[in-house]
């Protein structure tokens, strides 16, 4: 028993001694800060260390890179890892140790983004379709939520408000916690029912393909009890694709080839519908891209 007790004491001390010092984090952060490019992404390994990485390097992390719709749009990925953990198995092009913190960097085969719909949502036309007519939603500064558990994604201060009596009926950029609780920067477009909520983007450079992602907020999707949500994508009034999100699928994606359409620019419409809009906190992200790259 003396051996067991001694082992426990030594193991306890050893575990604590393995914790990286603040100085290690600071040196690793300084190393990355000196080399990071404008289209680079920073991640933590293991993922629970992410707040520490953001504490040291958060000034370099945009909402887009903190909550990307996929990883195919970054030139390089920097990883600050501890405890021998890594987010990737392939060898990095750069690796440097700072005490208990290991910095690794990979070059990625990034797509060139021609048009990011999330960035451009303020310039879209948003409307509620009601039969043959439609009701426009206005881009306004509107009251926001207080924040808190179960409150869903935070509304931006400016957004399209479609019906002030239904405070959830707005369209705008936010960050969704998807089914795996991964952050996703996306456009909140809560369906109202079988008739669509529509966002229309004009004169969009199409590139080679249109990549679309969508999902429902974690708090709602995890029950796996909601109606499927359909996101229809129209390019120049032609139905180009349909993403049907069923609870349990998590952050879903769809790629639409656009290189063979015969035109470089077009009007692109996103229509969201569902049979029962209860707790359908649906959010989507899309971009047109010029080169092929593997999705996340």
């Amino acid at each position: 028993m003396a051996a067991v007790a001694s082992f426990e004491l030594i193991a306890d001390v050893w575990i604590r001694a393995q914790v990286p010092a603040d100085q290690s984090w600071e040196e690793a952060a300084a190393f990355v800060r000196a080399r990071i490019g404008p289209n680079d992404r920073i991640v933590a390994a293991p993922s629970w260390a992410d707040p520490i990485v953001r504490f040291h390097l958060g000034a370099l992390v945009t909402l887009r890179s903190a909550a990307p719709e996929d990883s195919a749009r970054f030139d390089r990925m920097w990883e600050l890892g501890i405890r021998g953990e890594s987010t990737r198995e392939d060898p990095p092009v750069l690796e440097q140790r700072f005490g208990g913190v290991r910095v690794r960097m990979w070059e990625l085969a990034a797509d060139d983004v021609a048009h990011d719909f999330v960035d451009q949502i303020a310039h879209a036309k948003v409307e509620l379709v009601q039969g043959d007519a439609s009701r426009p939603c206005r881009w306004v500064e509107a009251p926001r939520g207080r924040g808190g558990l179960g409150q869903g994604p935070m509304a931006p201060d400016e957004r399209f408000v479609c019906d002030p009596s239904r405070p959830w009926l707005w369209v705008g950029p936010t960050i969704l916690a998807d089914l795996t609780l991964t952050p996703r920067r996306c456009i909140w477009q809560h369906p109202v029912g079988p008739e669509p909520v529509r966002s229309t983007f004009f004169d969009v450079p199409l590139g080679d393909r249109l990549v679309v992602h969508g999902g429902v907020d974690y708090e709602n999707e995890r029950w796996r009890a909601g109606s499927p949500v359909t996101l229809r994508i129209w390019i120049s009034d032609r139905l180009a694709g349909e993403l049907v999100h069923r609870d349990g699928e998590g952050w879903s994606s769809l790629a639409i080839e656009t290189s063979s359409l015969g035109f470089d620019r077009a009007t692109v419409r996103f229509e969201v519908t569902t049979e029962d809009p209860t707790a359908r906190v649906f959010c989507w992200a899309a971009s047109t891209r010029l080169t092929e790259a593997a999705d996340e």
Partner: protein
Amino acid sequence: MNDARALKRGDHSVGAALCIGYVVLLGRTASDLAMSRDESFYVHAAKRYAAWLSKLLTNPMAALEQQSIDFAWSYNWEHPALMKLGFAWSWLAHQQWGLYPLESLAFRFPAMLTAGLLLWLIYAWGASVMDRRGALFAALAFASMPRVFYHAHLACFDIPIAFFFMLTAYAYWRSLADRRWAPLAGVAFGLALATKHNSWMLPGILLVHFAWVRVIQARAGRRERASIAWLPWMLAVGPMILIGTWPWVWNDTWGRLGSYAAFHFRHVHYTYEYLGVSYFKPPFPVSVPFVMTLFTVPLTVLVLGALGLHRQRASFRLPSSTEFGDTTTRRTEVLWLGCMLAPLLAIALPSSPIFGGTKHWLTAYPFLALFSACGLLGIVEMAELQIWPGRRWPSVALLGLCLLPGAVQTAHSHPLGLSHYTPVAGGVPGAADLGMNRQFWGFTTGSVAPWLREALPDGGSVWLCDTTTGAWAMLQADGIIPRDIRAASSMLEADFVLVHHEPHFKEVDYQAWVALGTVQPAYVLRYDGVPIISIYENPKRDRSKRPEDG
């Protein structure tokens, strides 16, 4: 183990010393802990009950009107009243005489007292049946379990029910040979019923044990049989104490008791991370109480407990193996085993809520500590015969060494006891790798109070995340947070936003990013390198109030 030894005055002196020492230690370390969510609700309840008690003393007829009772007691009706009454009386006494250095201590003291009494009881029961060194070890091993130490500070019911649960079992056990203990068993059971619903499993455990003992006695041909006097006392006195201490059920008694039972049988399920999965609805893994015990109770205590069980294995043989003329005992080990396993098995049911982690089966741990003492004594007795005959100091040194891991880890766990995991889990970072619950109740906010005081020297506001406004108000009442640092109801209006790190709180993290337009925390509270709280600064706050500018 002996069947039962009479306790001496010296035993109670040791028990009293353990009790007083632990209560003093808890009192001196309590200010490090902000109130937990549940504590803040019980404090609110206690204040309402205190107002009713004051009315009862000054105008009893008015206080006893149903409207008056319902007004005071309708809050937090989902738990019986005994401990909240204790909190209320303690607070009233503090109001009158200023007994405590902190307001929060006025509410916490009664529960701390039960923690101290529980050590006394563990020692007393241990000393009744085993070498007193083992009894002392059991009490100290229980006291130095990190999670126990955390919960022992709180104005909650988990440590009190562990005390009354064990007290009932002890009085029952004494009553088997001495009927004078039967009324005390009834009273203890009533106090347990009036503390928390964990008590509901006691009659089942005791009946199984009683049947076990009686069958053995019958098969052995003993004319003297264990007394069943405890049962009518428990059935009669138990409900009387429950109802008598709980004015809420004085009206519509059956309806309200039914609501109380229904609340716990159909309890809502909160989210709880376990081995990388955030569980929020049944079925929950059967392994939860066992793995959490493995990961949070010091390994040395667990190994000793396993040795103790192995050492007592002959006592667990089924009554059917008893033959005529065999000697009989009260099968204390069987009772302890039942009291240890029943709380674990109840939580292991896939439908049982798991959100509170170890606190839900803390009633098992005093018995685990006693089995650990059995295991240690087995080693010591063997060593005193074969390895260090005639010398006692090596035994004392071994006892101390076996307590040391728990003591060291408990000291390190404070004030983040719910985030602590033992080396079996890989410590705090290992548990984070495994995806174990990191905290709940929002009490860790107390650990960022110094940072907030420094960041807001001229006052300001903080969005509290999982910390209740009641808990924040208590930090202010205790002087830990200045009153000019107020709780903000919205992230957007706050100078600083707190995020308590649990997976399902990532939603809140992302809300803060959008609300404040930054993903960079101004401060991250870490425990062994694992994030516990992130604090975001609102870029729109009045910069002139920043300390570096002022």
